[in-house]
C-alpha cells in the first residue's frame, strides 16, 4: 500500500518535472487520465506547458480541446492572450469559437468578425454546435446575438437549443421571442425542443402557451423538469397547473429530481402547496427532507421551532444536524451544543457535523475544527479543513488568510499534516489571546 502510494507520488512528481508528458496526458483515451492531468495543470500552471498545449491542441480529440481551452483561460491574461489569438483562427471550430468568445469577454471586440466567420463555416455539425454554444453563455455582443438568434430557428440538437435559450435567459434580447414563436409554429417539431421553447416563453413571463407546455411535460415526465430547471427558476410567476405538476413530482420522484422540484417550490409555492412541503420534511431521504425544510422556511419565513427542537433531541444524528442548521438560519442557537457533541464523536455523521459547525461563528467552533484536522478519517479532515477555511475569515474579519501558507493538507502525509497542524494551532493560540 505504502509502496504503491509512493510510486504514485513519484510519478506525479515526475510529471511536474516533465510538462511535455503532462500535456500529452490531456489527450489520452482514458477519461480519468485526462482529468488528472487537467486538474494538475490547472493547479500548478507550469509556464512551459501553455506553449505546448497551444501547439498540440488543434490535433487533439474534441474532449481534450475543451480541457485545453479551460486551462488556457485559467492562465494570467498576459500569458494566455497569444495562445487565444492564434486559436481564434484555428481549424478546429471548438478551439476557434472558444478562444474567440474568451477574447470578446476580455474586451478584444476586434476579434468579433473572426468569431462570426467561424460560426458561418460550412459543415459545422449539430455536435459541434452543442459544444460551441455553451462558450457564449452570457456573452453580450450585438452581432453575435443576431447570429445566435438565427440559430434558434434552425438548431436541431435539443441540447444545443436548450443551451442557446439558457444563454438568452441571461442576455435579454427582444428578437428572441419572435424567433421562438416562429420555431414553435413548425408542425413537425419534436417534444423536447418544443418544451424548451415553451419553457423559455414562460421564463420571459409569457403564460399564453402554458396549456401547450403542461401536457408535454406530463408526457415527458420528471426528467424534463431537471433539464429545464433554469427556465422555471427564471420565470416571474408560476401558473397554478404547472405548480401542481411540480408539487406532484416533488412527492413522487427520486431524490435528485425531487430536490429540483423543491427548488421551484421554494420559489413559488403558495399556501396550497405548504402541506406537500410539510409532508416532505419527514421524507426518508435526508437530502429531500432538508430541501423541503429549506423550501418551507423560504416560503413561510418562519421555522417550525417546536418540531425542529424535537428532531434535535431525536435519535437520528443526520436529522438532528439538519434541524440545528435550520434553527441557526433563523438566529436560534439551540442546536449548537448538539452539533458540538456530534462534531467531537467519531462517527459517520462527524464530517457533516463539522460542516454545520463551521457555520456557527464562535470560538468553540474554531477549536473543534482545528482538533478535527487530526482525525484519522479523510472525509472528516476534509470537512474540517474546508470548514476552517470558511470560518477563519469570518471569525477574524481584520485578518487575511492564505491556506497555502500552511503545510496542512487533509490528503497529505501524516508528517505533513502534523507539521501543518502545529502551525495552525500556534496561530490559533496566539490570535485568540488578542
Amino acid at each position, binding site marked *: 500500500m505504502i509502496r504503491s502510494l509512493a510510486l504514485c507520488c513519484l510519478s506525479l512528481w515526475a510529471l511536474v518535472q516533465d510538462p511535455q508528458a503532462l500535456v500529452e496526458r490531456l489527450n489520452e483515451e482514458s477519461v480519468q487520465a485526462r482529468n488528472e492531468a487537467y486538474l494538475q495543470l490547472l493547479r500548478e500552471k507550469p509556464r512551459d506547458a501553455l506553449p505546448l498545449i497551444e501547439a498540440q491542441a488543434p490535433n487533439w480529440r474534441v474532449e481534450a480541446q475543451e480541457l485545453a481551452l479551460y486551462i488556457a483561460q485559467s492562465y494570467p491574461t498576459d500569458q494566455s492572450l497569444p495562445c487565444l489569438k492564434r486559436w481564434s483562427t484555428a481549424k478546429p471550430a471548438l478551439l476557434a469559437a472558444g478562444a474567440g468568445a474568451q477574447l470578446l469577454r476580455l474586451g478584444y471586440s476586434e476579434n468579433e468578425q473572426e468569431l462570426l466567420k467561424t460560426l458561418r463555416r460550412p459543415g459545422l455539425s449539430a455536435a459541434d454546435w452543442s459544444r460551441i454554444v455553451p462558450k457564449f453563455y452570457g456573452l453580450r455582443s450585438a452581432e453575435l446575438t443576431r447570429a445566435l438568434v438565427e440559430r434558434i430557428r434552425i438548431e436541431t440538437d435539443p441540447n444545443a437549443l436548450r443551451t442557446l435559450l439558457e444563454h438568452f435567459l441571461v442576455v435579454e434580447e*427582444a428578437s428572441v421571442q419572435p424567433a421562438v414563436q416562429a420555431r414553435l409554429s413548425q408542425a413537425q417539431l419534436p417534444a423536447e425542443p418544443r418544451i424548451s421553447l415553451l419553457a423559455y416563453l414562460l421564463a420571459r413571463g409569457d403564460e399564453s402557451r402554458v396549456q401547450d407546455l403542461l401536457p408535454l411535460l406530463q408526457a415527458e415526465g420528471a426528467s424534463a423538469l431537471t433539464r429545464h430547471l433554469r427556465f422555471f427558476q427564471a420565470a*416571474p410567476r408560476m401558473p397554478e397547473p404547472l405548480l401542481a405538476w411540480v408539487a406532484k413530482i416533488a412527492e413522487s420522484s427520486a431524490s435528485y429530481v425531487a430536490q429540483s422540484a423543491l427548488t421551484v417550490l421554494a420559489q413559488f409555492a403558495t399556501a396550497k402547496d405548504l402541506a406537500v412541503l410539510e409532508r416532505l420534511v419527514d421524507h426518508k431521504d435526508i437530502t429531500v427532507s432538508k430541501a423541503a425544510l429549506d423550501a418551507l422556511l423560504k416560503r413561510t419565513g418562519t421555522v417550525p421551532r417546536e418540531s425542529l427542537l424535537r428532531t434535535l433531541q431525536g435519535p437520528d444524528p443526520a436529522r438532528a444536524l439538519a434541524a440545528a442548521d435550520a434553527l441557526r438560519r433563523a438566529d436560534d442557537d439551540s442546536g449548537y451544543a448538539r452539533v458540538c457533541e456530534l462534531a467531537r464523536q467519531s462517527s459517520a455523521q462527524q464530517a457533516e457535523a463539522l460542516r454545520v459547525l463551521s457555520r456557527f461563528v464562535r470560538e468553540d467552533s474554531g477549536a473543534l475544527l482545528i482538533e478535527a484536522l487530526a482525525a484519522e478519517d479523510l472525509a472528516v479532515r476534509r470537512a474540517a479543513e474546508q470548514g476552517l477555511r470558511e470560518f477563519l475569515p469570518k471569525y477574524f474579519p481584520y485578518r487575511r488568510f492564505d491556506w497555502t501558507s500552511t503545510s496542512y493538507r487533509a490528503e497529505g502525509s501524516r508528517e505533513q499534516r502534523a507539521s501543518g497542524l502545529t502551525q495552525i494551532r500556534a496561530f490559533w493560540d496566539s490570535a485568540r489571546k488578542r
Partner: protein
Amino acid sequence: MLERALAWEDPNAEARTVWLCIDATASLSSTGLPEALSALLDQPNFALGKLKVGVHKVGAKQVLLPPSEDRTALLEALRAALAQPDESIQDLYSELRMLCQLLGARAGERAILLASLENGDAENDIEATVQKLKATKTRLFVLGSESYLADSYWAERSYSEAPRDCELRGGDNAIIDLPFGWLFQIGSPNEATPSGFGDYALSRLVAASEGKLFLYQAASSAAHQCMTLGSCLFCSNDHIASKEYYRRALLEALAPSLAPRTQVLEQWASDPYAKATLTAWRAALQAGLVRGSPPRAGHLTFVDGNAQGKANLLTDGKPDRNVARAETALKECKRILSALEKDLERIDASSGSPRARAIAEFCACMLDVTQVNLIGYIGWCEELAPRWFDDAANVLPPEIRPLEGDPKRASIGFSTRSLCHGARPFLAIELPGGARLREALSALDQRIQRFEERYAHTPYVVALHRQGIAIFHQVFNSRLVERPRPRSKSGEENGPSSGTPRPGRAGRSSASGTGPTSGGGG
C-alpha cells in the same frame, strides 16, 4: 386589479369608458397583462359594448386605440404597447391630464388604469393632476410597484436630469422623513427598504380620485439577502429573516399621509416625535454623522456638502491623526443620542403619529450604531492600522501579512457587515476596540432587541438590518492603466457611447428586486 378598473360603479349607468395607460417597460412586459385582460373580457359582466376601452402608450405622440368595443383590436393594441419597452424616464402625470381631457368629452362613468412599474417617481404637478381627475370625475386605478421607504435615491443624485417640468422624488411619503446617509454606512436603507406602499404621487392621485392602487410583485422576487455587497459574516446566504416579512395590520398603522405635500410637511413639523427627530437630525448633520439634509418647506432634500466633507476627513490622512477627530465625533454622537432619548421620554405617545415615532426610534438606533462604528474606528486606528505595514509583524500561517505597499499612498476605506442577525454575533468575533467596543455592542444589542420587539414585520426593522457594523481597511490610490482604444480600419473611430437617458438604478426594478415579501399595502 383589471376587474376593479373595468367594473361598473353603477349597474344602471349608460356607458363606461376606461383608458388603459401603459408605461411600457421590460418589467411590465412580464406581468401577463394581455392574458389577464383577455380572460376578463370572456366574463359576461365585462362584455364590451356599453363598456369601451382605449389604449394609450406613455410617451407615444398619438393614442394607440381610441375607446373601442372591438375586443381583438383592444388586445392587439395592448400587446403592441408592451412590445417595445422603453426604459427612459417618462412623465406619467402630463399624460394622465391629457387622458382626463379626452375623457371629459365622454358620457357616463370614466376611469383610467395606469400600468407603470418604474416612473411614478418622476413627478409633474401632482395637484394639477388631482384637480383634472376631480374636474372630469375620473377614477384612477394604478398597477404600480412598491416604493422604497422615504426613498432618498434621487436626493443623493441631485445632478440627474429629469424630463421637462418633472422633479425626481419617489418614496412612499411626500417628504424624506427618514434620516439618510449615515457615517460609515455603505448605502442608505432609504434606497433598499421596500415600504409596503406605492409611490406617494400615484397614491395621492388614487386616493383623491377614489380609485385604487395595486402593487405588483413578481412571485420570484422575495429572496432575502443579508448583504447587498459582499458576504454576511454570520450565515452562508441562507438566513431566514422572519422579522422582515411585513404584516398588513402593522403596515397600515405606519402608513404615510396622502395629503398634499405642503400639508404633509406641516403635519410632520408639528408632530412631537418628528420634532425630536428633526433636532437630532440637524445636530447629526452639523457633526458630520449623517449627510442627507432634513426636509424643509420649498426645498428639495439633498446631500449636505459640509456634512459629507466632515465624514471624508475620517477617511483621509493617517489613522493615528484621525483618532482625535473620531473621539470628538463620538462625544457629539453620544450627546445627540442622549438628548434625543430625553426628548422621546417626554413625549405623550398619543400625541404623535406612529410613523414619526418609528422614525425617531430608528434614528436613536442609528446614532447608537454610529457610536459603535466610531469606537470600532478608533480601535482600528490605534490597534491595527499602525501594524499593517510593519514588515516585522509577527504573522503565523495560515494568516498572511495584511498589506504590502507604500503607506504614504494609502487612505482609509470600509465595508459594512449587516445588522441582519442583530449586534450580539459581533461580540463573538475578533474586532478592535476592546472592552469599550464590547460594552457598546452589548448596549446596541439591547436597543436593537427593543426596537425589533416593537417594529418586527415592518419596514423599519428591515431598514435597520440594511445598515451595518463597519470593518475598516486601507485602500491604495490605484494607478489606472488604460488599454488603448481599438481603432476601426475604415470609417469613424469607435467613440464612447453616449450615456443612457436614465441613470442606472440597479436592483430597483420591481420584477427583479430582492426585497422581502411585504404583504401588500397601499
